[in-house]
């Protein structure tokens, strides 16, 4: 239990540092109000925005206010979201809380990441185990080639090819956008290619290593069917590197789906980050990065805790000898 508390404290510290770093970086790249409005904006508009956003206060005061706000769930407001040209007055009327904007995008991001992983995990593990159980066979070679292809394929190209084939030529699926189940298939498949390849590679090498261990001979000598030898005895022991890889890939899906969201016009957090960057919408950038960082830190935390479930010697605090 002490371990769990310690890890959670660590994670919160990492989150705090990330948030602080983004805050400082946002102020280092120039005047936020000028960046947001562009060089053509009038002095009045810039001054009004500074006033409304509290940018005239000393940096330290802004920082304390920002951190204090986050602690109470207030990440600040955006004046630019949904507006291409900013009015110079009555800014408070168009202000929108950035956290709401980000949270609105979360279900789309989760749906896409979840769909991609629910394809990638079983398929990647199945491919890896099949290859490991029959080393140097035709199946092993096919898996090796396919997983390498999955890892190295350029995502937006794969996405475009899938659109050309399934949406344009065959007309089975929509080309993009957000809606029912049919909308998620192509972006999820595009995103799944890399995790499938990497999970297959890691599973293959971990299971091969486990299959060479003496306890596998014991299992075979007990008369355990080969399927169970591989999928129960070996895979359970190979699970730690596999779960670590799945966690890595999930983090990547939550942060790095940007290109694929763009190709399929999928309204996830990735797309939001791009849009807010292009508008220099500092409060929105800060909030999206904070939320994504929180998700990544949570995934890592869960992966760490899963080790304790997967390995009894870690769970029971045994250090060997």
């Amino acid at each position, binding site marked *: 239990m*002490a371990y769990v508390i*310690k890890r959670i404290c660590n994670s919160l510290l990492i989150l705090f540092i990330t948030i602080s770093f983004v805050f400082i970086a946002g102020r280092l790249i120039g005047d936020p109000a000028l960046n947001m409005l562009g060089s053509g904006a009038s002095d009045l508009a810039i001054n009004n925005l500074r006033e409304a956003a509290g940018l005239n206060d000393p940096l330290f005061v802004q920082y304390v206010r920002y951190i204090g706000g986050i602690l109470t769930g207030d990440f600040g407001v955006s004046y630019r979201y949904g507006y291409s040209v900013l009015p110079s007055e009555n800014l408070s009327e168009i202000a929108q809380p950035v956290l709401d904007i980000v949270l609105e995008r979360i279900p789309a991001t989760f749906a896409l990441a979840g769909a991609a992983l629910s394809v990638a995990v079983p398929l990647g593990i199945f491919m890896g185990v099949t290859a490991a159980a029959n080393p140097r066979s035709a199946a092993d070679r096919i898996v090796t080639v396919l997983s390498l292809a999955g890892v190295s394929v350029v995502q937006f190209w794969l996405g475009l090819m899938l659109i050309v084939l399934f949406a344009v030529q065959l007309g089975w699926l929509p080309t993009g956008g957000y809606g029912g189940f049919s909308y998620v298939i192509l972006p999820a498949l595009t995103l799944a290619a890399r995790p499938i390849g990497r999970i297959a590679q890691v599973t293959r090498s971990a299971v091969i290593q486990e299959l060479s*261990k*003496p*306890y596998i*001979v*014991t*299992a*075979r*000598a*007990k*008369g*355990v*069917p*080969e399927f169970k030898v591989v999928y129960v*005895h070996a895979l*359970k*022991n190979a699970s730690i590197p596999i779960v670590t890889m799945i966690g890595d890939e999930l983090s990547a899906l939550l942060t790095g789906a940007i290109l694929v969201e763009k190709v399929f016009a999928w309204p996830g957090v990735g797309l939001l980050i791009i849009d807010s960057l292009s508008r220099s919408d500092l409060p929105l950038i800060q909030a999206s990065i904070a939320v994504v960082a929180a998700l990544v830190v949570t995934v890592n935390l869960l992966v760490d805790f899963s080790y304790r479930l*997967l*390995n*009894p*010697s870690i769970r*029971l605090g*045994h250090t*060997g000898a």
Partner: protein
Amino acid sequence: MSSEPLIQIDRLNVEFPSKLGPVAAVKNVSFDIAPGEILCIVGESGSGKSVSSSAIMQLTKFSGGRVASGTIRFRSRNDGVIDLKNADEKTMRSIRGNEIGMIFQEPMSALNPNFTIGWQMAETLQIHRGQTRAQADARSLELLKLVRITEPEKRLTQYPFELSGGMLQRVVIAMALACEPDLLIADEPTTALDVTVQAEILGLIDTLRRETGAAVLFITHDMAVVAQMADRVVVMYQGEKVEEGPVRQILEAPQHAYTKVLLDAVPRLGEMRGKAAPEAMRVMGDDTDAKAESIHPSTKPILTVENLVKRFPIFGGFARKVVANVHAIEDISFTIHEKETLSLVGESGSGKSVTGRNILRLEQPTSGKVIFDGTDVLAQSPKDMRDLRRHMQMIFQDPYGSLNPQKRLLDQVAEPIHNFKLEKGSAIEDRVAGLFDRVRLPRDFMRRYPSELSGGQRQRVAIARALAVNPKFIVADEAVSALDVSVQAQVLNLMMELQADLGISYLFISHDMAVVERVSHRVAVMFMGRIVEIGTRQQIFENPQHNYTKTLLAAVPTLNPDIDIRDRTTLATKIPSPIHLAGYAPPKLVYQEVSEGHSVLINDLQ
């Protein structure tokens, strides 16, 4: 005992593929086993003894092997006599773990680390008997009681890493017996275990054989184990059966030259009785090694160890404070004289290796004093320590791990010469060549890489490397434990010859009582980090005083087949924990001098 054999192996050939075509691992081997009989297959590494047994179970195919020809006729319960060579996978699965049970060499790795003992035992019963988990657990409990394990109920819910090696081997045996097999294959079941645990396990297998009537195929490299266990013996050498016969005939009137070599190479406990100095071993076909003269140490001390203590801290809590200490060695004192061999003997965890490492300051001792040739070792600066190491070298247990696989042997042996700038230019190579002559390796080996050498040859290289700087003192940590007996004899003879010629002193660390008896001038017996008894070899082996020394000596298997192994199996002592809370100070050890130079610990661990 029925005259009909349970299993008949006829002209078995097993091959493994290689780049140069198939390599025969087992060549035309035939033997059979009667019900209730113990057949021992004895041989050194590479003799094909393990491959033969895994061929019976059709397990060779998983490691790439192939049964090329021959028959394995097994009298199955349901199907009558079948040839296991041609049996399909389904038939094999019904035989494995059911009609034939198997026990393995390393109990520590033979069980799946991720499942409980109960789960793994139940698996066998669920597969072959279709039992529910509850039924299987009940049967597992019976089996654990059968193998006489302590607290059997608790074991079912434990994981393998929570049990000691001896307990795990009992679990593996219980698992193999789950379905009352007619044949039990035991592949080096005690090689990885301490000698007192070995005695218990051997006794257990023998008892179970009598109780269950199962036949046993027992594979070992150890002739003394053969003498204790076998009804009949098959001797294998390089894939072939060279001799077969009843145990007494093999031990007392061996016919084949290799059997004689194997028997001669085994140091026999007690054969040095009445002799004051170590003696070289008989090595067949290599009379040059066998120096008859014995080595007499001087009275000048080379190394004095006083009250050496090493504790490993255990950290805990948020602040990572020292909460407890592992008391690895406690109050160790002894002296080694010039040209003398002092052996540290004890079982795993007794602290003998820790002692060796702390003397050389490879680890920093917690307290104590080490005086080497008049110099206080622990007071040296790092630079002075480096110079001092020239005179103190070490040989390690694993000749596979202690040589760098990427470097030529010449460069590895030359490295200490470079480091201490002892020679320059071509003189270095000349010196290495001399060292290769010294350890009897051909000079053309200097250009080779470790992978091209056998284990014994590698250990010679390791010795040459230790000798490169002309040390006065060598710590040999289980230096021959990983070697086959015939090779072990040669390496031991080499070490004794070097001592005679160069006057080297050895701290010889070993778990093998018979080897220790052969090579030592004086012996210190270690238990729980303490020296429980120290004296000359004759004092320790001919007049042991401490209970633990007696236990250790009694547990060593001997070549005498008349000794009933089951008489020696009541030795199990509960070992106290070496972990104590921070601040704990153990009682000052008190030794009683039995006779001159022979001391025994009297106030602790009795």
